[in-house]
């Protein structure tokens, strides 16, 4: 390991600019003549638009244009689309309802953008928006996914009776039925996976500029995948052909999935820029982010696990209703299907699994991928069932897991996935040791002496990352391949620019990707720049989500580096007057094998450009190579998290007393950055389990529309986290990477809830287990006890 190569805890190169305020986010970009766009949003969950009066508003000071759904329709743009086709069990395609950029005649959720006002100043746009009068005729609304399926529920889209988007299933129902017939015991759980707001620290923003001379657009945008945004805006929405649309995602402050999708606001901002011939800015404020960003999770599930006498799992049966909100967001259909049901085998050898998923429309903000995306929901189902089964059978939860672990690889599960490698006992053992699992009894007694309840819970999770092998996802309905591209440009002075299709919005690619190059070429990390997020610079890329940038993005860089090395060897052979086959490249030096004749990487880089020294016909000048990498399989990070909680029975307040995470991410590029990713994920996982929750009232008003009511986790809510790793290198990619971005959010909720239910002595505790919920559970138990 070199000091800046793979495995070194290199300090993040990008942090200095971020923490000194020198980052350049979308809102930091100021263009001459720019004007401001403000959206007037629906105040109704479901209503017909009978009239929009904007005449007075359009004459107010500074107002340049007011756009409605009719204007967008007149431009023949849209609709917004969902890019992953799911077929129902009966073979029918999913009911993708039209999603107009701005609604023409009906609004379907509170916060849906209805009218766009463009004015010289932000306050003028806001003033004018207040003067626009929209007449609504209210319609009955439905927000609960189970209710939405019932006869007589308000129907949200004509195309979808009973609001059904699809009835999908995976696995062998007959085999599962047979397994349940043989079972010695069956564990059943009703589970609600609570809806969350992504809450990236930087709200979404878009700045659009139109050049009438070339009829081309530039969009600066808070995007996790600018090329995908350009592709969709071009091919599906029809804003402009790809070669006349540049999308730039500069510094982006977090995404957690919410900045993957192609939203209405970006389209309207682009349209506005063309119509007013001025650069147009839309910068969401925090309140707007609560309704403008796709939400996450929102499953209602009935899950059953069949076990034999020895605690071996025989089968798993899962029925889930997934709430996709009022419209299908860009990748919404894939989350509760192929990113969910395919992970229901967990770390366990389960002979038979069947999962049925009903996706429904409701009058709520659209739901799509949020950190973990489907895999936290799957882990929650499996790991709650494991813990409850262990308690019912009187087997230690760690032991029950151990009995069912998959131990030989590759392992084909009954739900598509083929796990390539792993060592689940190793991460379990290490986690139990680090958490002092054996000492829990003493700590529990100590808590009880202080009048407190204490519980412990495990979560042995698995995830499918490195998204994704194009063959696999293409056959399952994905509209795009999920490969990645890279280009390595070596300058004559030996410095290097890496252009990557991955996008960093907090992950630290400028450091980790540079570590790969530094180690490989033997050049200082300061001589390497990572260029990303601009469709005019990077040829193409699929962006960053699904913990894919290491496993897929860096693999593409490795392929490009292979080509650079091969070309550099040819140059070195010329320079050193040796045969190409005799050139050895090691530690940044090209050497003629068996001699002391050598040249540094910098010398070779320079000579690659000194074409007058060689004949161009034999050797093309320059040193720049590109590559595309398509993964052969998903990667399967896995590990074990252990949570210990203490509960104040007088108030119901839950405190996370200890939290331990041992993860197998394969080869680790930068342990410090990995630790940070794990911390952040755990914070969001604990947030889901104990704090965060979107609440709608029955009429569809968003009750938790600000931080006054939506509980965001804070640093003081967490103990010091004990984080460690085990390593089984991933055989599927050249660096052995599995990915680490989502693990914490996937593993933590089950660990926390297993601990809370252990402390309370009842399994019937919903997320978030906040103080009111826990107090209510305790009251219920006290009443039951009194009755008995």
């Amino acid at each position, binding site marked *: 390991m070199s000091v800046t190569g793979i495995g070194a805890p290199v300090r993040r190169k990008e942090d200095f600019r971020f923490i000194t305020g020198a980052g350049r986010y979308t809102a930091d970009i100021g263009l001459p003549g720019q004007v401001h766009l403000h959206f007037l949003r629906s105040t109704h969950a479901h209503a017909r638009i009978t009239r929009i009066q904007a005449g007075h508003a359009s004459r107010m000071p500074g107002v340049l244009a007011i756009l409605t759904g009719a204007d967008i329709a007149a431009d023949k743009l849209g609709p917004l689309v969902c890019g992953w086709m799911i077929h129902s069990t009966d073979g029918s395609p999913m009911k993708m309802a039209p999603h107009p950029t701005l609604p023409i005649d009906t609004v379907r959720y509170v916060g849906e953008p209805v009218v766009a006002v463009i004015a010289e100043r932000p306050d003028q746009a806001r003033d004018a928006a207040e003067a626009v009068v929209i007449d609504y005729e209210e319609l009955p609304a439905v927000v609960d996914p189970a209710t939405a399926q019932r006869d007589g529920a308000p129907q949200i889209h004509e195309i979808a009776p009973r609001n059904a988007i699809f009835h999908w299933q995976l696995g062998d129902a007959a085999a599962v039925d047979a397994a349940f017939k043989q079972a010695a015991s069956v564990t059943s759980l009703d589970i609600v996976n609570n809806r969350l707001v992504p809450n990236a620290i930087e709200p979404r923003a878009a700045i659009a500029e139109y050049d009438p001379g070339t009829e081309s657009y530039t969009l600066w945008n808070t995007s996790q995948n600018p090329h995908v945004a350009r592709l969709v805006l071009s091919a599906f929405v029809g804003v402009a052909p790809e070669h006349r649309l540049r999308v730039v995602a500069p510094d982006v402050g977090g995404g957690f999935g919410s900045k993957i999708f192609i939203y209405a606001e970006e389209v309207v901002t682009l349209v506005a820029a063309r119509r007013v011939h001025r650069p147009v800015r839309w910068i969401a404020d925090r*309140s707007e982010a609560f309704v403008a960003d796709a939400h996450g999770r929102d499953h209602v599930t009935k899950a059953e696990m069949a076990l034999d006498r020895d605690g071996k799992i025989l089968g798993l049966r899962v029925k889930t209703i997934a709430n996709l909100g009022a419209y299908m967001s860009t990748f919404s259909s894939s989350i509760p299907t192929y990113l969910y049901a395919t992970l229901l085998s967990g770390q366990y050898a389960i002979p038979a699994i069947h999962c049925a998923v009903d996706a429904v429309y409701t009058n709520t903000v659209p739901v799509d991928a949020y950190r973990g995306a489907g895999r936290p929901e799957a882990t929650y189902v499996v790991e709650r069932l494991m813990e409850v089964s262990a308690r019912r059978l009187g087997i230690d939860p760690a032991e029950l897991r151990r009995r069912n672990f998959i131990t030989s690889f590759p392992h084909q599960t009954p739900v598509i996935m083929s796990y390539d490698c792993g060592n689940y006992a190793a991460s379990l053992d290490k986690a139990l040791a680090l958490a002092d699992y054996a000492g829990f009894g003493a700590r529990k007694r100590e808590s009880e002496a202080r009048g407190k309840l204490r519980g412990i819970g495990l979560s042995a999770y698995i995830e499918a990352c490195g998204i994704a092998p194009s063959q696999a996802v293409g056959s399952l309905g994905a509209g795009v391949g999920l490969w990645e591209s890279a280009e390595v440009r070596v300058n004559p002075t030996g410095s290097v620019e890496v252009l990557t299709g991955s996008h960093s919005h907090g992950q630290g690619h400028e450091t980790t990707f540079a570590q790969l190059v530094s180690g490989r070429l033997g050049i200082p990390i300061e001589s390497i720049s990572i260029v990303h997020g601009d469709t005019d610079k990077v040829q193409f890329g699929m962006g960053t989500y699904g913990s894919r940038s290491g496993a897929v993005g860096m693999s593409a860089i490795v392929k490009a580096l292979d080509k650079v090395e091969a070309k550099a060897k040819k140059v070195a052979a010329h320079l050193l007057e040796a045969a190409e086959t005799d050139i050895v490249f090691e530690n940044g030096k090209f050497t003629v094998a068996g001699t002391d004749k050598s040249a540094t990487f910098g010398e070779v880089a320079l000579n690659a450009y000194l074409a007058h020294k060689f004949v161009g016909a034999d050797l093309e000048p320059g040193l720049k190579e590109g590559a595309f990498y398509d993964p052969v399989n998903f990667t399967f990070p896995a590990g074990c998290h252990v949570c210990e909680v203490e509960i104040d029975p007088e*108030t119901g307040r839950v405190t996370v007393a200890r939290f331990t995470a041992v993860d197998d991410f394969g080869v680790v590029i930068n342990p410090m950055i990995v630790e940070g990713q794990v911390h952040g994920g755990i914070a969001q996982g604990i947030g889901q389990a104990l704090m965060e929750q979107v609440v709608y009232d029955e009429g569809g008003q968003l009750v*938790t529309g600000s*931080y006054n*009511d939506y509980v965001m986790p804070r640093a003081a809510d967490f103990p010091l986290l004990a984080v460690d790793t085990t390593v089984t290198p991933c055989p599927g990619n050249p660096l052995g990477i599995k990915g680490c971005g989502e693990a914490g959010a996937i593993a933590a909720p089950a660990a926390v809830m297993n601990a809370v239910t252990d402390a309370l002595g009842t399994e019937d505790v919903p997320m978030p287990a906040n103080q009111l919920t826990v*107090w209510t559970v305790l009251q219920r138990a006290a009443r039951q006890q009194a009755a008995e």
Partner: protein
Amino acid sequence: MYEFTYHRASGLRQATNLLGKHEEAKLIAGGQSLLPMMKFRLASPSDLVDLNKIEGLNGIELTSRALVIGALARHAEVHVSPEVQQGIPALAALAGLIGDPAVRHRGTLGGSLANNDPTADYPAAALALGATIVTTKRKIPADEFFAGLFETVLEADEIITKVSFPLPKKAAYQKFRNPASRYAIVGVFVAKRPSEVRVAVTGAGASGAFRVPEFEAALQKRFSPKALDGLSVPAEGLASDIHASAEYRAHLVGVMARRAVAAANG
């Protein structure tokens, strides 16, 4: 935020005149409640009269009988003031629990009392300690000052100048926070005064802070957490929201009161 006219008052007389002249005028001290409301366009005063440059409104003075705190004293100043820590340490502790550091360095005692947010901390202290609110016009006992949600008996052109807190023998404040806003779901201030015991509750009431006579009577007999065993406040009339039902708040009033008494007894 809508447009408004800003006035920097140099004295109380000028401030009073400005309030009289502009019907939709509002005083601004720390602005930690008013400015967010204005930013959300939920408040739209025509004029803001800034009190911050007026001399003599931010002193803290400890006498043998009372702690007198200027209306413009910031929560952070109250929190770290040696006079407050010596005179009424429970009040210093309470100030350190308000909002976040930014709020505590801008927000003021007078502003908090005049705003009378039903989840604010200071109203509980004022009621329990038997404080007197001194204004440009009169002296108002805390018991007569609060008049329902975000309402006080202050007249349109009346300005709080200082608050006098009689020194208790013992006092403590226990705050149970809303996990989102960090305001009090229930905050209980207990004060053992030379003549009486007072228990005041913030956060729980549907119409603002209130005293609990049953608790006071029991504690008057015996100033011990055990004195409150079996006593509770009715859920009726308490606030209810997604963070706490009225029943939960009623329960917490008892829990926080017992904890406050225990803390006051050290």
